[in-house]
């Protein structure tokens, strides 16, 4: 296609500016995290790396006092991993099963049950946060992984993705399977699940990132810092920055921020094609 030289030049200039706009805040946080606290306090935010990378990140990862609590960043990363994986696995399994029942079966309660599932879209967790907290508290699930993960799974987004996908699967497959004598469970496990592998992977990646990045619910749920996820941990560290009359520990707070960002960004970049395909196709 014809493009003028000027157009090509501005294209690159604009895209480079756009990329810088996205990257600069994270870059500044990263390089500022590799200096000593005195240096950052006196000289402000930095644009080039310092020499204290291993010192600061080592302290954050292994020394509980660096994160102002009883947990290290390593433990917080573990909690985030449990939340991300638990949320993604739970969501994929539960919504695959529910969508299968809704699409492939004729049963009495199909329509009302579909509407129950659909209704969860009307009221995100953020809106029913106070009563949700009370329910989880009355079940004795505060400060547990179960209480952290299950309420987040109670929404229908995954079910709709799979419903959409199953409807695009050719009917002939079911007819053939039935001729060969396969029952509903057999059809699900041997035919539908293998067919959905790419779809499962894509939704899994999206859900992992969504789970990892959860904020409000873990913030209310986890009063015990042993269960802090890294996203919650950052907030606590920033809150205590100005305590005790010492020079604020900015570099370590930035280091924690960077560590919370790396895992989900890596997942999205490494599985980019699958992730983009999943995002664009499921939300249609």
């Amino acid at each position, binding site marked *: 296609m014809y493009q003028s030289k000027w157009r090509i030049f501005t294209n690159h200039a604009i895209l480079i500016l756009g990329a810088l706009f996205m990257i600069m805040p994270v870059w500044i*946080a990263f390089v500022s995290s590799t200096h000593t606290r005195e240096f950052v306090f006196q000289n402000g*935010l930095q644009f080039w790396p310092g020499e204290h990378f291993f010192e600061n990140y080592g302290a954050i990862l292994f020394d509980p006092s660096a994160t102002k609590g009883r947990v290290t960043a390593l433990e917080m990363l573990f909690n985030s991993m449990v939340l991300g994986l638990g949320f993604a696995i739970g969501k994929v399994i539960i919504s695959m099963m529910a969508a299968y029942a809704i699409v492939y079966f004729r049963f009495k309660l199909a329509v009302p049950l579909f509407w129950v599932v659909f209704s969860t879209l009307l*009221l995100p967790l953020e*809106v029913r946060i106070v009563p949700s907290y009370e329910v989880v508290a009355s079940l004795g699930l505060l400060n547990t992984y179960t209480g952290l993960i299950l309420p987040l799974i109670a929404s229908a987004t995954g079910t709709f993705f799979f419903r959409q996908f199953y409807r695009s699967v050719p009917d002939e497959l079911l007819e053939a399977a039935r001729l060969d004598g396969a029952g509903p469970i057999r059809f699900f496990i041997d035919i539908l699940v293998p067919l959905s592998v790419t779809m499962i992977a894509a939704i899994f990646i999206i859900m992992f990132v969504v789970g990892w*990045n959860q904020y409000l619910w873990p913030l209310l749920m986890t009063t015990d810092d042993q269960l802090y996820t890294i996203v919650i941990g950052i907030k606590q560290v920033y809150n205590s920055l100005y305590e005790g009359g010492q020079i604020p520990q900015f570099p370590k707070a930035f280091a924690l921020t960077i560590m919370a960002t790396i895992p989900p960004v890596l997942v999205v970049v490494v599985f980019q094609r699958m992730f983009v395909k999943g*995002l664009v196709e499921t939300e249609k």
Partner: protein
Amino acid sequence: MKRVQFEHSAVPYLFVAPQILIISIFFLWPAAQAVYQSFLLEDAFGMSSQFVWFRNFEDVLSSSSWTRSAIFTVVFSVLVSVLSIAISLFLAVRADEVVRGAKSYKTLLMWGYAIAPPVAGLLGNMLFNPLMGDLYMAFNSFGFEFNHIENANDAAFVVILIAVWKQVSVNFIFFLSGLQGIPKSVQEAATLDCKSPERRFWTITFPLLAPTTFFLLVINLTYAFFETFGIIDVSTKGSPGGATATLVYKVYVDGFLGADLGGSSAQSVLLMIMVSVLTVFQFRFIERKVHY
């Protein structure tokens, strides 16, 4: 629905059971509680409560802080959606045109999807820190008397900037794949007929992207309503004086920090109604798109 279906009594119930169980316990029950509590008035110690019909709703709707928050939410949501859609559409059109480095640009512009809203908020907080924030100092050195801690407009500017920054990559992904879905033959015919890239964009490309844009508008409004909670809670916390508190943030502040259960529940129910309207709107649109 499928033409061919299984007819089996117990199996479908077994398959929906886990989802229905979780929804009942963690969605229907709390939602019902929210509606119930919105009709109750608790005394100061939370010991007893009485049924007061719509008084909580009247209190909420007539309070100036709620009205102010509602206005802020609308302005904030519209600005965030329009700005982030405009920026990412602009970037996506350019990224669709480049040949060299196309893949790298795509990666560099889409990774932001993975950033958690509170992390975005903290990065913004860092850049606007009065002690050392580069943007704070830059604005002030250019002669603006920028002070987001005391000035409501400046605070709103900070929150909007962070929220837009966080949302650009999602919109970019959708626009780029929308652009790549436009057939090459259409693009080439347009190039032959019209030399100016700007006119080509407004007469050919943009109308073809209209469904994507509309879909993204709904997605972005939902994002600005709910997901910006994390951004607000770590950057301005709604200050100064509640000027940057969205409705969702206010539900949290009144319910958890202020322990006003009835008022907070009434706000939840009002939000629920607003979201229902938005969702119905979205679904009607999607259904229509499917029929075309």
